[in-house]
């Protein structure tokens, strides 16, 4: 029964918003069984299809400043969750939790949650705030 519910949830999740557009496999791109966290300043928000990206300047584990590419949902899918191209602005200080990329040199993360320090805006904590 649990398996059936999980299957139904996965299908609904994949098709919610009518846009299951993964042009690549997340499982192949990220370590889905690991999480990492960064805190830094947003330098670019690419609100687009097939997937949006948030570029953040934040230190790595060694304290060196890096430009991180955080992969987010497609514009259509995020739009149905209330996110627009104006939601984030360069200069915003944000904390991001996500799955790390398989190649550490890429400084790449798949977004699981985001929180903006200035006003507490968040994504990824409420039900349905996911992407595929």
């Amino acid at each position, binding site marked *: 029964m649990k398996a059936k519910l999980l299957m139904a949830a996965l299908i609904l999740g994949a098709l919610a918003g009518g846009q299951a557009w993964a042009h690549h496999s997340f499982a*192949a791109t990220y370590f889905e069984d690991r999480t990492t966290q960064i805190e830094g300043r947003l330098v670019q928000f690419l609100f687009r299809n097939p997937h949006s990206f948030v570029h953040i300047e934040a230190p790595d584990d060694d304290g060196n400043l890096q430009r991180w590419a955080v992969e987010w949902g497609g514009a259509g899918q995020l739009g149905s969750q209330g996110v627009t191209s104006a939601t984030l602005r360069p200069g915003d200080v944000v904390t991001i939790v996500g799955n790390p990329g398989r190649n550490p040199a890429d400084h790449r993360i798949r977004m699981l949650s985001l929180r903006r320090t200035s006003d507490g805006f968040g994504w990824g904590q409420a039900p349905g705030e996911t992407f595929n």
Partner: protein
Amino acid sequence: MRGHAGLTVHRADSGLKRQEIRVRSSISAALCALVFWAVPAGAQLSITGEWAGRYHEDFDDRVPGDVNGDFTGVPINDAARFYAETWDVRRVNVLEHQCQPYNLPHIYRGPLQFRIWEEKRPQTQEIIAYKIYIGTYMQSRTIWMDGRPHPSEYAPHTSMGFSTGEWFGDTLKVTTTHIKKEFYRRSGLPSSDQTQVEEYYVRHGNLMSQTMIITDPVYLSEPYVNSQEFELMERGNQNWLYNCEYVMEVPQPRHQVPHYLPGENPFLEEWANTFGTPFDAIFSGAPSTYPEYAPQIEDMVNEADNE
């Protein structure tokens, strides 16, 4: 006495009149036969409407997408193995590939919705072509039903290729050539521009089955067969728009092409290791797709256990 234009005859004796009636009847019968013979397509099952995929079959492969090192079920040859060994999934992030459409044998394997409508010859109402709009990557496809030949091998190749169709009873057979190269799997199994696809569509009420037989002399050692199910959507106009935009997704040196040199791909055996399956069983292609291969897997597992 006047008959049909061009058939007027003037005969006094009754025998000739009977002959004239027979001629008229024969012509009428022939005309009727011609009229009914000219509309066989109208008797075919309709496949028009808006269809959505059902994903109960091969769900992991089709919806969340491939994981590294899953090469099962595809009759790959040495060339495909070499390609897969050097494949780095990050290549899809390169500018040129971000919005690259899936090609015909690949696009029906993923999440999709599509609309089919008919183009008919106005004078006869015969079906000239089925037109298809596929939401994923906004692809348009035509299946020509008027018996036209496929173009020269030097004609342009497209993601959806050039398709012709023919009804066999209630089964629509579609043959497609001139398909652009792409992938059978995003785990790095490539398809070449010599790929040809035969599709068989069978409708059962509001469900439609599609069986694909894919041949590729460059990367497959045998035909690759798979099947999909589609469901007629009661509410129309749910097709997607795919307004893909090219950007620098992940900062990286210009013109860099992510890849692994042969023997250096750290993820090649990940799937095999995850499921405790001998890698040979996953990477051997055609032999492993047959039931008689199962005992060999068992032998390989036993050998590994004994080592």
